[in-house]
């Protein structure tokens, strides 16, 4: 008996829909489960107080501050370097051996596991450079980790800018640098923003690398050279050591909401960029 191609197609399609719906179901379940169990415990005082008795009581203010510091500083360091690299690769050179080497470096960096970044950050920033377990060590490590993302997205954004823009700018007598900064980068800005926002998200959710470089101090950090525990690490410690399930769920809710907001912002920027260059 031969099964008709239409039947095979219907079966394959049904199978794929099941897979896709399951995938979306998992996503919805994760978000709903965390928020249902955690959101009721996210009170104003939870967000604005310091933890007490290792996080069993009290809030998560130092972790919110610490996360903002580490992720913010990481992106402040990585963004200029990443954007400059992408500008060099796209506007200042021709494809050749050098660009191949730079791309190879970025691609390999993108594939390295976060725990390796953690080990490196630990021996290099924490010990060799003597920065200790601190916000700076964590931020520098994360900066290296998100660098490939920023390079890649900026490159794509710059490539999407129509070449007629460049010709027009040159036609008006601008130098290459003027053309790049005032025309290309300006048009590519929302696209570059997407990469930066996604990098913030990646830094916020990272755990292994910050555990080995930023440490797990519970106090409110005063300078960038203080150790600080991030939200993701706090959540890990609370749940793994069974300190407080309630506070673990509440911390996870804050984390999930932050990630949702960050992804939404990235998505919005991307749509704006696509609308701009097409």
């Amino acid at each position, binding site marked *: 008996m031969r099964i008709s*191609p*239409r039947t095979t*197609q219907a079966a*394959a399609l049904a199978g*794929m829909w099941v*897979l*896709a719906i*399951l*995938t*979306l179901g*998992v*996503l919805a379940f*994760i978000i709903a*489960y*965390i928020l249902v169990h955690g959101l009721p415990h996210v009170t104003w005082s939870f967000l604005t107080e310091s933890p007490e008795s290792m996080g069993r009581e009290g809030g998560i203010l130092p972790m919110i501050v610490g996360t903002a510091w580490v992720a913010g500083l990481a992106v402040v360091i990585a963004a*200029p*370097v990443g954007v*400059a690299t992408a500008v*060099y690769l796209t506007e*200042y050179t021709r494809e050749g051996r050098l660009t191949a080497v*730079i791309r*190879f*470096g*970025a*691609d*390999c*960096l993108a*594939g*390295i*596991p*976060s*725990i*390796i970044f*953690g*080990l*490196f950050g*630990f021996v290099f920033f924490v010990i060799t450079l003597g920065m200790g377990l601190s916000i700076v060590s964590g931020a520098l490590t994360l900066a*290296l980790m998100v*660098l490939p993302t920023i*390079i890649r997205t900026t490159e794509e954004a710059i490539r999407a800018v129509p070449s007629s823009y460049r010709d027009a700018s040159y036609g008006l007598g601008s*130098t*290459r*640098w003027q053309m790049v900064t005032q025309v290309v980068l300006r048009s590519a800005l929302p696209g570059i923003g997407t990469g930066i926002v996604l990098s913030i998200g*990646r830094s916020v*959710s*990272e*755990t*292994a690398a910050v555990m*080995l470089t930023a440490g797990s101090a519970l106090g409110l950090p005063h300078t960038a050279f203080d150790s600080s525990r991030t939200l993701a*690490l706090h*959540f*890990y410690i609370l*749940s*793994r050591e069974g300190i407080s399930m309630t506070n*673990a769920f509440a911390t*996870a809710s804050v984390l*999930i909401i932050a*990630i949702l907001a*960050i*992804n939404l912002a990235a998505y919005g920027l991307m749509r704006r960029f696509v609308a701009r260059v097409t």
Partner: protein
Amino acid sequence: MRREKIIALALLVTALSAISGLALITAFIFKEGLPIMLTVGLEKFILSGDWYPTEGAFGIFPMIVGSLAVTAGAMVIGVLFGLGCAVLLTQFAPPRLVSIIKPSIELLAGIPSVVYGFLGVVILVPLIRENLGGPGLSVLAASIVLGIMVLPTVTSISVDALQAVPRSYREGSIALGATVWQTTHRVVLRAARSGIVAAVILGMGRAVGETMAVIMVAGNTLDVPGSILDPVRTLTSNIALEMGYAAGDHRKALFATGVVLFVIIMILNTIALAVSRRRARQAVVR
């Protein structure tokens, strides 16, 4: 013109930061890890199962097996779901649904690994323990959690590969009377093969390198697992679990674990890059 030259030079120097970062990481990981590997003996370090770091016995064979086992399991799930979603998104789904499904899968990639690990412990582990037996913390639990985590990587790279297939291939096949599904698996998937292989290999790299989620659900025992319901420890969890208190040779042995992990990842990266470069060359020939 002089100003332009200085700018170009400054940009070049900055652009070298990615490759110098990679060089620094390689240098420091090897510098810290390689000596102890050579003292213990490379063969003993990799093939021995005795890990008693306080007594100077460093053998990571069970961790290597553990990493490979959870990665293999993760790939079964990650590739099935990831490729299924990618084919659906590029060949069948109407654009309006694509605009919902694609960002959702990207969001899945944004969820912190600790959240995956936590839900694995709270939901998956008891489910496995009660229905299939064993401690629950197991190769199976780690594989399922990792499979979900690598799914977005596999999907997004496969989507790119499938979209890069020239439209004329698809149209030609459909014009010959093939159904969309026949076209998909006989023409489009075949043409996108090397891109999909790259997606699978990069997904594999993700799975091998994932740390926090695996620590939470894999059980972390030091034995070679006998079945998928047994607990395991991976290379990554070995580092993260013991780095907090290790000192001296013990710490160096953890860096050596990192060296092994690093070498595995670099091999996977290089294969993926070579495969996708071949694809780029083929595209030019076409």
